């Protein structure tokens, strides 16, 4: 037995180097194994990185929500909308029950919703400030003259710029393309008489400015603001991937809002500055060049042409300062700010870094870079479940990033707010807020606003207002309601009971060990049935929709393509082995003639493949391991946002496990044996008669 095996291995080894076909097969096996090792390890690492990002950001290991819900939970949105969930019946009871399950570490209450908010344009913001000052003056506040005058000057500056724009277009365009009312309105507000009359009837003048002038600047974006209402303290403690970037966390038990950094930058930053950042990042991190890159070239063009946003933001004094600084920095004699800005933004690969620095050092300090700043109060208006529009004020404490997902538009678009504010917006206000509303309704005579006005309020309103309406139905109260009430709400500290004993739409369940997900899912179903909790539990993959399934889908796609590669390899190996067999019919026939049985011939071919498999497969595994070792030590840099997302960060440090090597060797052995089976059987069919035929 052993002696026969010895001769088989001997023949196999000798054949290995005698035949060029074997080297082809060997090369396929070598690269195949290396590929499986590297690909498998990379996929595994990506999978692990992504799952820890998703689990550690908002999903947790599991999510529970009410089984009575119409839709399925979709943490990252449901085709652009929000899933319609019913509130969890009795959250404190649910939490107790869930925590009693072995392996459950934390249960974090949540609710997800979205609102459309107008980011407001610069003119709106400036006019809102002027209105606020006029309001305060109307309430006999003193010492406002300087501020009021500066603000008026700013508005007049804006009007000058708008008139300049309009006149320029008149020169190049057909007169009919310009609305005559627009020109008339601008002419009227340019007159000194208009401004002389301002002090007599500031609110009439403001209304004219707001209705006739502000709409001429159409750079207000509608922002789709998604937010997760949650127990913020518990949330920040539970999710290890959340990191505060600007500002600080919302103090425990307080109302507050945290912007997702990505959303904050994309949606609320001055567009010019955002584009500069993007160019900067592309040059610094991805090593790109502006020249020849269509996207970067477009950014440069847009920055050059879209300077008005900056021009409008600056009052006369700041405009003068900006002109002075830019003339010095650019060594220019140009008098006009927009022309100076255009030449500042005329960047190419040689001067970008310098211009970037000039912008941030000289111009940016004069500007509000963000439409909402940390510390501001944000007004969010949303439709309640009953279809009313509700508006809530909440203080912005800072911004946060979800590590690894911070560049994914899907994942990083969710902002955070406290549960109390969430409930107010959702239409399940806390008992206290409900009381307050009815008190105010009574005071204001419960005057309802008509539908068209409500729309206007919703979409036309500036994002930041200093007044604090609680519900838009109470618009009559606007401006009358004492500010201190909003401040009271802002300073109020809620107890854990208060936070938990209200509407909760879903809850993240964090476990000791990700491996326990299926077991705990089953236990929750059981428990929910037994204690009538009315819960539905889903894994994080399911809860996070396409995002959670991305890794799985990618894995499936890669395994599918690997499958195709292997099928091709099988065909090639099969053909090669067939050729080798046919070339060797004389030898095989001779062996059969001198007394070798069929199984001997079968083993001869298979042993040869196995020897090939082990030798070259081993070599491939070694090669793959070396590559992984190298990659693991140096990390793979993410080269674009998609890879950043898959890597869950700027760099992936893949790891290699022994199981992966074993798996690769196993699969390669299997593939080579399967692909040799047919040639091997064909070999056993070679008749000993061929030995007698003379060799050609």
């Amino acid at each position, binding site marked *: *037995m052993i*002696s*026969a095996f*010895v*001769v088989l291995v*001997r*023949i196999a080894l*000798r*054949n290995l180097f*005698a035949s060029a076909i074997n080297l082809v097969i060997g090369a396929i096996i070598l690269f195949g194994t290396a590929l499986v090792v590297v690909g498998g390890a990379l996929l595994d690492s990506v999978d692990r990185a992504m799952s820890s990002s998703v689990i550690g950001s908002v999903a947790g290991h599991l999510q529970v929500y009410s089984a009575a819900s119409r839709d399925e939970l979709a943490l990252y949105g449901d085709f652009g909308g929000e899933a319609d969930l019913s509130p969890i019946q009795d959250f404190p009871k649910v939490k107790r029950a869930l925590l009693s399950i072995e392996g459950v570490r934390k249960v974090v209450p949540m609710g997800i919703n979205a609102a459309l908010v107008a980011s407001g344009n610069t003119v709106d913001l400036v006019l809102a400030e002027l209105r606020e000052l006029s309001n305060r003056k109307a309430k006999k506040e003193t010492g406002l003259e300087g501020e009021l005058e500066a603000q008026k000057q700013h508005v007049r500056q804006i009007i000058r710029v708008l008139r300049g724009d309009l006149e320029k277009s008149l020169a190049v365009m057909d007169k009919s393309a310009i609305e005559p009312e627009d020109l008339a309105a601008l002419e009227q507000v340019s007159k000194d008489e208009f401004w002389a009359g301002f002090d007599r009837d500031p609110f009439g003048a403001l209304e004219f400015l707001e209705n006739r002038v502000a709409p001429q600047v159409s750079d207000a974006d509608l922002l789709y603001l998604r937010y997760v209402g949650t127990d913020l303290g518990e949330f920040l403690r539970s999710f290890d991937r959340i990191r505060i970037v600007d500002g600080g966390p919302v103090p425990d038990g307080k109302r507050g809002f945290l912007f997702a950094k990505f959303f904050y930058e994309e949606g609320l930053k001055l567009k010019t500055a955002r584009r500069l950042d993007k160019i900067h990042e592309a040059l610094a991190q991805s090593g790109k060049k502006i020249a020849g890159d269509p996207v970067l070239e477009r950014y440069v063009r847009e920055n050059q042409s879209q300077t008005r946003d900056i021009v409008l933001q600056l009052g006369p004094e700041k405009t003068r300062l900006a002109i002075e600084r830019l003339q010095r920095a650019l060594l220019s004699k140009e008098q006009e700010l927009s022309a100076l800005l255009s030449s500042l933004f005329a960047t190419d690969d040689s001067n970008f870094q310098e211009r970037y620095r000039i912008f941030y050092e000289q111009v940016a300090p004069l500007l509000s870079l963000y439409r909402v700043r940390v510390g501001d109060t944000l007004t969010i208006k949303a439709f309640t479940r009953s279809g009313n529009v509700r508006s809530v004020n909440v203080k912005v404490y800072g911004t946060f990033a979800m590590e690894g997902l911070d560049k994914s538009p899907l994942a990083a678009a969710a902002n955070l707010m406290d549960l109390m504010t969430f409930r107010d917006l959702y239409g399940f206000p806390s008992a206290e807020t409900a009381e307050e509303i009815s008190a105010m309704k009574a005071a204001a005579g419960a005057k309802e606003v008509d539908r068209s006005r409500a729309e206007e309020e919703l979409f036309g309103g500036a994002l930041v207002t200093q007044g604090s309406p609680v519900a838009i139905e109470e618009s009559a109260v606007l401006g009358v309601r004492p500010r201190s009430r909003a401040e009271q709400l802002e300073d109020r500290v809620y107890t854990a009971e208060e936070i938990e004993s209200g509407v909760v739409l879903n809850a993240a369940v964090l476990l000791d060990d990700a491996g326990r997900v299926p077991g705990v899912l089953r236990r929750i179903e059981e428990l929910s049935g037994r204690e009538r909790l009315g819960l539905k539990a889903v894994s994080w993959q399911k809860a996070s929709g396409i995002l959670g399934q991305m890794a799985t889908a990618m894995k499936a796609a890669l395994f599918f393509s690997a499958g195709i590669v292997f099928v091709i390899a099988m065909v090639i190996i099969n053909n090669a082995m067939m050729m080798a067999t046919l070339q060797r019919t*004389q*030898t095989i026939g*001779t*062996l*059969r*003639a*001198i*007394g*070798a*049985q*069929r199984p*001997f011939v079968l083993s001869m071919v298979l042993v040869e493949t196995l020897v090939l498999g082990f030798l070259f497969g081993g070599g491939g595994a070694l090669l793959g391991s070396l590559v992984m070792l190298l990659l693991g030590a140096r990390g793979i840099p993410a080269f674009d946002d998609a890879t950043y997302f898959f890597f869950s960060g700027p760099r992936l440090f893949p790891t290699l496990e022994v199981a992966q090597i074993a798996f690769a060797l196993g699969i390669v052995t299997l593939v080579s044996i399967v692909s040799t089976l047919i040639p091997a059987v064909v070999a056993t069919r070679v*008749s*000993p*008669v061929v*030995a*007698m035929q*003379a*060799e050609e």
Partner: protein
Amino acid sequence: MPPIVSIVDVVKEYRLGKVVVPALQGVSLEVHPGEFISVAGPSGSGKTTLLNLIGCVDTATRGQVSVGGNDTGKLSERQLTSLRLDTIGFIFQSFNLVSVLTVYQNVELPLLLARRLDSAERRGRVNGLLEQVGIASHERHRPSELSGGQRQRVAVARALVTEPKLVLADEPTANLDSATGQNIIDLMKEMNRRKGTTFIFSTHDPKVMEHANAVIRLSDGRIAGRDLPRGPAEARA
């Protein structure tokens, strides 16, 4: 002594599509142990076909072929292979050595297949044979490094290493020049004399036939006669 080969009314037909090619048309023959027999006949007369049937690498269409007392028509493929391994040695026209194995390994191969001897016995047997066929000094060489005559010596050693009762050789000298061919036939004859091994070989070459005890003449698939060879071999026999 019972014949080692007994053939009765054997017909072998090859089928080429619809055409039936009769290669042997009713051949009967007996070969006794220790004989040194030549099969002669013009090209296409059925020499190779006859040897294939005796060598159990092919089966008769009709008639009976017995080798070593076994009716080959009644044996399974596996049993036929065993019969070849144990009872028959083959020498081929084109030597048919395994090119990736050395001279020594080629000769040892049938012993490894037979699995009867331990490695020391194998070594003794192989070395002894290599000595006898005069190729011992080349035992580490590959077939490709040998001349035709040397290769055929190795083939003779390989055919004899299992000590078969019968050795078949289909035109063993056809690929050799005549002097070398003579040497090989001398070698075979010597083995026949020393060990009493039965040899059946086919040839075109009248000079080669002279060494045989008997010459079986084939013509169109029939035995035309069984003669004693003429010439010196006759004198020797």
